[in-house]
């Protein structure tokens, strides 16, 4: 048996461990680039996230699958390590040592930002859908809901009986949003004052996408993660509540 084949089967069999190794190498290389090319100004974690997204693009291009790089068999452990279970478990852990008075101080504006965030994203998606020529209120609502997050889209679409193409489109809108938040947050943060717990809570409420917020804040300042995650965690639920009900009625009324 050839040693490469043996290695291959070990890497595949121990997917999660392989994922630790792969992520470790990506992060090491990213911090190396951050240090050499930007003098540490552009966060190593931001570079790591961007490299991972690029790798994920090629994973999807090569395999035609839905899980990015994780669709290539030896990298399949990434899907587990980067899945919702570990992500949420680690997010909860970041709350350890959070400043509770900061949480309380920004509580109200955090809730306000949640409502504004859901309604704004929905409105943008709905307006774009009708500009692109969609006429059916169900289609418009589903695309608007997808712009809220890629979970709210299919939940709303299913509730309203949208076609599967429209659902796929709504999921894509949510994906675009989530990926863009990951990439743009470290670039935008200095310009919008995203450097304290309060603005992090507002950011979490406005963007809402769990993965986007999680990765975006990690690349700005990991200390801000629990504040953003705290509001973002209510976003999808609020979207699932508003989109198929009040917001759908509103769209039907406007139409």
């Amino acid at each position, binding site marked *: 048996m050839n040693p490469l084949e043996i290695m291959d089967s070990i890497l595949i069999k121990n997917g999660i461990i392989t994922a630790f190794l792969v992520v470790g190498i990506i*992060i090491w290389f990213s911090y190396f680039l951050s240090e050499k090319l930007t003098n540490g100004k552009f966060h190593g974690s931001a570079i790591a996230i961007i490299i991972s997204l690029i790798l994920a693009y090629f994973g999807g291009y090569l395999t035609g699958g839905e899980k990015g790089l994780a669709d290539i068999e030896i990298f399949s452990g990434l899907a587990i390590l980067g899945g919702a279970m570990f992500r949420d478990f680690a997010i909860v852990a970041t709350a350890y040592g959070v400043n509770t008075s900061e949480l309380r101080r920004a509580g109200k504006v955090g809730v306000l930002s949640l409502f504004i965030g859901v309604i*704004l*994203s929905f409105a943008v998606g709905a307006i774009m859908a009708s500009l692109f020529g969609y006429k059916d209120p169900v289609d418009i609502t589903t695309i608007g809901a997808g*712009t809220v997050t890629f979970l*709210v889209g299919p939940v709303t679409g299913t509730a309203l009986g949208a076609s599967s193409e429209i659902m796929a489109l709504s999921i894509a*809108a949510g994906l675009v949003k989530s990926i863009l938040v990951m990439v743009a947050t470290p670039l*935008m943060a200095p310009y919008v004052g995203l450097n304290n717990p309060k603005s992090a809570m507002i950011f979490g409420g406005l963007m809402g996408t769990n993965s986007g917020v999680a990765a975006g804040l990690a690349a700005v300042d990991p200390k801000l993660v629990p504040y953003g995650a705290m509001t973002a965690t209510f976003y999808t639920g609020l979207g699932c*509540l508003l989109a198929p009900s009040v917001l759908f009625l509103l769209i039907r009324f406007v139409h």
Partner: protein
Amino acid sequence: MVIYGVALLAFCFISGLFLGELLGRLIGIEANLGGVGIAMLLLIGLSAYLKKKILLPPITEKGITFWSAIYIPIVVAMAAKQNVFSALDAGGVALVSGFLAVFISFLLIPFLTKVGKK
């Protein structure tokens, strides 16, 4: 022992998700309403209480802080499994809506931060 910290974290996580799911069902949506946030609040509350009772020695804390530190690697793995290809391959509506929603939301951050100050 380290496992006590991990177990405490797991307890908060499971309880939070359970309450979030229950909350969602109560108001009739098929989604978890703030489970992770509730879990975070539980962890903050419980750990503060245990610290006061001197029941949270540094070695136990390590079971929690390890997961907090492994957060960024997890996020990097998460980025690598995103469906980037189909996001970029999607139709114009998806790209434009996603882009505008994010851009406008960013512009609102400084505005809302000011609102909160009053």
